[in-house]
C-alpha cells in the first residue's frame, strides 16, 4: 500500500499539523512516511500545503506532482491541485469558501463541511481534525487507534487534555462526509 496525498489550504487552518498527525499515525503502525511542506515566506492567511506519503515500502520522492488523493481547503488550492489528482483518485474538499467546484469526471469527489461542523462544536481550531476524520472514512490508510497514538506523539503533553475533543472532531468528520461523485 502506498498513499500519496496533498493537503492544501490557508496557513493557520492546521494543514501542516494534520499532515504531521497522519504521518505519526503511519509510524505507529510501522509504515514508512514522509511529510514535505511548502515552506517559504508564508504566514497565517497565506497558502500552505504539505505532501504526505504513507507506504509499506521505502519512499522514493517526497515531492510529487501527481497524487492519489488531494484534500483541498481553499479556492487557490482547488485551482492549483484539482488537475494533480491521479485518474481514479480522490478529491476531498470543504465547500465553504469554494466558488468554483471541481469539474473532473475521472476522479472520486467528496465534501465535508468541516468549517461549519467545527464552529457548531464550539471550537474552530478542530477544523483540521474534522477534515482528517472525513478523509479517513474515505481512505482508511491508518487505523483510528493509531491516529490517537499519533495525536499523543505529535501534541505537546500540555495539550493532551484536548485529545478527547480532537477525537470528537474526527468522529464528526467520519459521520458527515458526503459523496459528490463516486466512480464504479
Amino acid at each position, binding site marked *: 500500500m502506498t498513499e500519496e496525498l496533498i493537503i492544501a489550504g490557508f496557513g493557520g487552518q492546521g494543514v501542516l499539523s494534520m499532515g*504531521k498527525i497522519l504521518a505519526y499515525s503511519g509510524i505507529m503502525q510501522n509504515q*514508512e*512516511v514522509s*511529510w514535505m*511542506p511548502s515552506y517559504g515566506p508564508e504566514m497565517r492567511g497565506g497558502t500552505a500545503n504539505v505532501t504526505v506519503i504513507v507506504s509499506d515500502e521505502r*519512499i*522514493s520522492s517526497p*515531492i510529487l506532482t501527481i497524487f492519489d488523493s488531494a484534500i483541498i481547503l481553499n479556492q487557490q488550492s482547488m485551482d492549483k491541485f484539482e488537475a494533480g489528482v491521479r485518474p481514479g483518485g480522490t478529491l476531498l474538499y470543504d465547500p465553504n469558501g469554494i466558488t468554483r467546484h471541481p469539474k473532473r469526471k475521472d476522479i472520486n469527489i467528496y465534501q465535508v463541511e468541516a468549517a461549519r461542523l467545527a464552529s457548531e462544536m464550539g471550537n474552530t481550531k478542530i477544523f483540521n481534525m474534522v477534515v482528517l476524520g472525513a478523509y479517513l472514512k474515505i481512505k482508511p490508510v491508518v487505523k483510528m487507534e493509531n491516529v490517537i497514538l499519533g495525536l499523543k506523539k505529535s501534541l505537546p503533553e500540555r495539550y493532551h487534555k484536548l485529545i478527547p475533543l480532537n477525537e470528537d472532531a474526527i468522529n464528526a468528520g467520519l459521520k458527515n462526509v458526503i459523496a459528490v461523485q463516486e466512480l464504479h
Partner: protein
Amino acid sequence: MSELKLMKGNEALAEAAIRAGADAYFGYPITPQSEVIEYLMAEKPHERTGMVVLQAESEIAAINMVYGAAGAGKKVMTSSSSPGISLKQEGISYIAGAELPCLYANVVRGGPGLGTIQPSQADYFQSTKGGGHGDYRQIVLAPASVQEMADFVKDGFELAFKYRIPVLILSDGVIGQMMEKVELFDPIPRLTDAEINEKYPWATTGKKSGTERRIITSLDLDSHKMEEHNHKLQAKYKEITEKEVRYELIDCDDAEYVIVAYGSSARIAQKAVRLARAKGIKVGLFRLITLFPFPSVKMHEMCGKGIKGFLAVEMSSGQMVEDVRLAVNGCSKVAHFGRYGGIVHTPEEVLEALEQKIIGG
C-alpha cells in the same frame, strides 16, 4: 533498538549533534536551516551533556569559534545555508590548512547571491572544488533522507577526527525541511579534557612543564616547508580517495542506462527509475553518498560493462555532471538534467529527460 521519531532533517541533524557527543555548536540562523539552532536552543544540551550552543554575531564569527574549539581538540560543528556558507569559507580554508577536525552542514538554497530560500544543489562546485582559497579538499557527505541527516553527523565526526579534516554534510532545503521516520543512535559520551589531552597529541590543551609546545597555524613563510606541508595534505586526500568512497546502487544489476544523483535529487530520480521500469526501460540509480571522494573508479567500471548512457540529475545548471564526465572519460554517453534557482524537478521531468537526452538523444 533506539528511539523512533518523526523529525525534520534539520532537527535530526541537531539532535544527532548532541548524541554524537559534540562539545559545541556555533551558528547563525538562516532559512532553510534555522531549525538546527532553534532545536539546539530549545533542547538545552548544556543540561543534557554539557554541550555549548551559541548564536554567534555572524557566520564569520561562528566559523572562527569552530576553528578555536577544534584547535583545543573539541568536537565542534556549525551549519548554515548557501550565502552563510560563503561567508565561512575563509575559516574553512584555515581549518583545512591547520589540519583540524570539524563538521559543518550546508542546507543549500538557490543562488547566486541571496538567491531564494527554496531548495537547490548549486553549491556542488563550492563544496567539492575548494570553496575557500588554497589547495585543500574536504570530505563531503550527501544525505538523501532524514535518517542520514542524523547518521552522517556521527560518521562525519569520526571521519573529521580520523583525518583531521573539515567534513561537510551537503544537504538541501528538501532534506532539511521534510519530516521522516528516524531511528536515533544511542548517545556517545563527550570526552573529558584528560581524554582529549591523551588522545590528540596535537590539541592545544595548555602547555605542561616538560612537554613540547603545540602550535596550530596555517601559516608558514618558508615556501619549502609550505610545499612539504602541501605534500602531506595531498597524501591525506589520496588516502581518503582510496578508502572513503561511498555510494548506493539501486536497480543497476541489469541496467542499460544509469541516472547519477545525490541528496533530494536521488530521491526524485528513484521515483523516475520506478516510472521508467514500469515502461520497460532498464534504468538504475547511482546514488552518490560521498561527493568528495567521488566514486570515479566504480562509475568507470560500470561504463566498461556496457552502460549505454549516464544522466546526471542535479538541481543546478550542471556541476556534478563534470565529475561524471571525468569518471566516464568518453567511454559512454553523458547528459545533464536539472531545474535550478529554487525549482525542484519532478520524477516525470527526469523520466522525460532520460528518454530524450540519453535513450533517444
